[in-house]
């Protein structure tokens, strides 16, 4: 699947917040059609990486190239990117229709095109009857669907999804997983961060594990399994991040609770 040039190429990326090193010289290359499962404990630097690639965080060291261009050279690359942020940041005083039209237009789509796509996708995800309602009245899962739709309106080549399944019901999860697989088949690149290892294990074609600002592992699930001699990503994850006291912690918790 790895044909010619990388879609994303990160070179010695480092970032400090004050004295805290969030990213310590990360380098990686991502190719067309890959679904990257980007995993790591809380505060490992996942969101920061994604935010740098989106141009939301400035002041980093190293270089980031997306679709062959340094992201410092202009904003046009963003036209090809869809983004679902980690915290469901959304203008919830708007109706779903207004929000989607707004976002679509920001990506340069015409009003007619956005409307057609928005209502179509809303209907398919079962939100047709709340198309005109304010987002503030939506449940977590409904908001998540709106965010997903807003990231897909402009048919992007790269998708950055931060915990995209959170709050979704089982049938929607099925739809989204299938959708991601199909998008990858069509040559889109998906950069997916999550804490739910079962999902990452199943949908990713490549898994990148980051901890404390450094890449600990990079490869397909099978490769990780072979290296670690373990069967589940969850165990591999904890092994690599050096976490093995969960049983003792639970024992102590039980003794406190009882």
């Amino acid at each position, binding site marked *: 699947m790895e044909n010619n040039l990388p879609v994303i190429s990160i070179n010695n990326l480092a970032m400090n*917040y004050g004295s805290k090193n969030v990213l310590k010289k990360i380098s990686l290359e991502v190719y067309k059609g890959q679904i990257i499962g980007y995993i790591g404990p809380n505060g490992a630097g996942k969101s920061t990486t994604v935010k740098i690639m*989106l*141009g*939301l*965080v*400035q*002041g980093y060291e190293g270089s980031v190239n997306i679709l062959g261009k340094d992201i410092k050279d202009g*904003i*046009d*690359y*963003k*036209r090809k*990117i869809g*983004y679902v*942020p980690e915290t469901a*940041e*959304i*203008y*919830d*005083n*708007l*109706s779903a229709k*207004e929000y989607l039209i*707004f*976002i679509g*237009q*920001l*990506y*340069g789509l015409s009003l007619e095109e956005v409307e057609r796509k928005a209502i179509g996708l809303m209907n398919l995800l079962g939100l047709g009857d*709340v198309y*005109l*309602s*304010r987002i*503030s*009245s939506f449940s977590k899962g409904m908001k998540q669907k709106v965010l997903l739709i807003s990231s897909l309106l402009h048919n992007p080549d790269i998708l950055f999804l931060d915990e995209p399944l959170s709050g979704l019901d089982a049938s929607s999860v099925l739809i989204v997983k299938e959708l991601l697989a199909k998008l990858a088949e069509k040559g889109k690149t998906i950069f997916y961060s999550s804490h739910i290892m079962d999902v990452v294990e199943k949908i990713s074609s490549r898994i990148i594990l980051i901890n404390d600002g450094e890449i600990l592992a990079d490869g397909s699930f099978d490769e990780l399994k072979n290296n670690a001699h373990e069967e589940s990503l969850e165990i591999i994850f904890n092994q690599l991040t050096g976490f093995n006291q969960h049983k003792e912690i639970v024992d102590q918790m039980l003794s406190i609770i009882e």
Partner: protein
Amino acid sequence: MKNFFLLKLLVPFKKLFTLIGIDYNVMRCILQVKLTMDSRRVPTVFNNSNNKNTNKDKNRFLSSLLIYMIIGLANLPFILLGHNFMFQMSIVFGILMFMITTSMISDFSSVLLDIKEKNILHSKPINSKTVNMAKFIHILYYLSSLTLALALPALIAAFIKFGFMFLFIFIIELIFINLLIIFFTSFLYLVILKFFDGEKLKDMINYMQISLTLIITVGYQFISQGFHYIGNSFDIVYTSQWWHYLIPPMWFAAPFEILINHHSENYLYIFMSLALLVPILGIIIYIKLIPSFERNLQKLNNEANKVKKTRNIKITQLLMNVICRNKEERIFFRFSSEMMKNEREFKLKAYPSLGFALIFPFIFMFNFSRIKGFEGLSETKYYFNIYFCTIMMPAIIMILRYSSNYKAAWVYKTVPLKKIRSIITGTLKAFIVKLLLPIFLLESVIFLSIFGLIIWIDILIVFITILIFINLCFNILEKALPFSESNEEQVNQGGTALLLMFIILLFASMHFGATFINYGTYIYALILIILNFFLWKYNFIITWDELENEN
């Protein structure tokens, strides 16, 4: 979405925007969304038709402008006084600038400090120039409506009295003043953003807003008092001092002297050039500062995980144990105290009111005493002014039900509570101990030192009256659990507030009547104490059903 008036205004400038590298259509989109959101401070759950709401919003916006216009009437005397422009216009501009800046900081900081915007907009293919221009126009739009409303009375009066030329200078200068204010406020925020971050920063901004709200109101009282002295001293001949160059309102007064009165002193020209150059320079600096502003804005997201030591003050601990009779009440006493201490929205709304409660009695007292003089004050019954500190009580009790984390109120229902009553009494008692008592004690000490210890019984009566009054507030106001409703759903209960004000007047009159009878006050105090005892024992009964119905 509506096609707003502002958006139509921009159409002719389409080419100009495109010329300086701004994506006009995108900018228009952003502005449309922002204006739509501004007009929707009330989110209605599952409401598909927006018509009803937009109408209501419009009225609300108009009425707020109307209030500003009424405030703006304060400028009239200064315009109409005479032809000493240097003096008159300095004061007019001083008032205008102060009003605009403060409302800009207190009402508009949410726009200036919007971090959501960054994540939503900057991840899209929009150049930062376009985003910044949209932001700038948005701010400018509100600033202009505000300025226009505030200055309208003065503008009309100036036109009638001094003619077109005066009006023209006035309007041009207002534009420059707005530029200066934009620069000034963002610079102020930049400095604060630079030195503080995370929660501390939010606290700083919060306190700044609170103090500014306070200053406005108090400032107004003093301006109104100042009229007398200004009226008398109107023949002052203006002499320029070096420090006058540091007072912006004076810069803006100078052009009137030059262009209308045809005075041509050097210092006037310096003032005038300052009035022209500083705002222009300021706005250039502002545009240069935006990136660094944005960078520092990220700090708002940072969480400084500093552990705050909780000081358990023994006195409150003691008071709590005395006045809260059961465990549940104590739980909510503690909970509400913490909430009142930490919730910024609450502080922003409640603290200025508390400040007024502290200041009002003195303002009214000084207003009265100015007529007769301070001597002999202690022989009068002006200590009744202490009743003015109750004016803000209903307002604060009303605020207690709101919270920005109102959704967390589900805990009330899921925990095994014996009586809902404890939630309410616990909260009200926390309010009394934490907010009311400190202010009332301070007030009492001052009043006792002015009027002598003899009025202790009257002070006691007032305090008991307040306690009874809190009962009545609860009964009359719409019932709700504390911190359980969204800030944005606030309903105006102006009518009820008026009724409550009348009740206080009734209490005060009874008290006043009692002072004419021998031992009257003592008997009255005894009656109040008994009434208060029974009210706090048996009132505040409320059921879940009642609460449901209210919603």
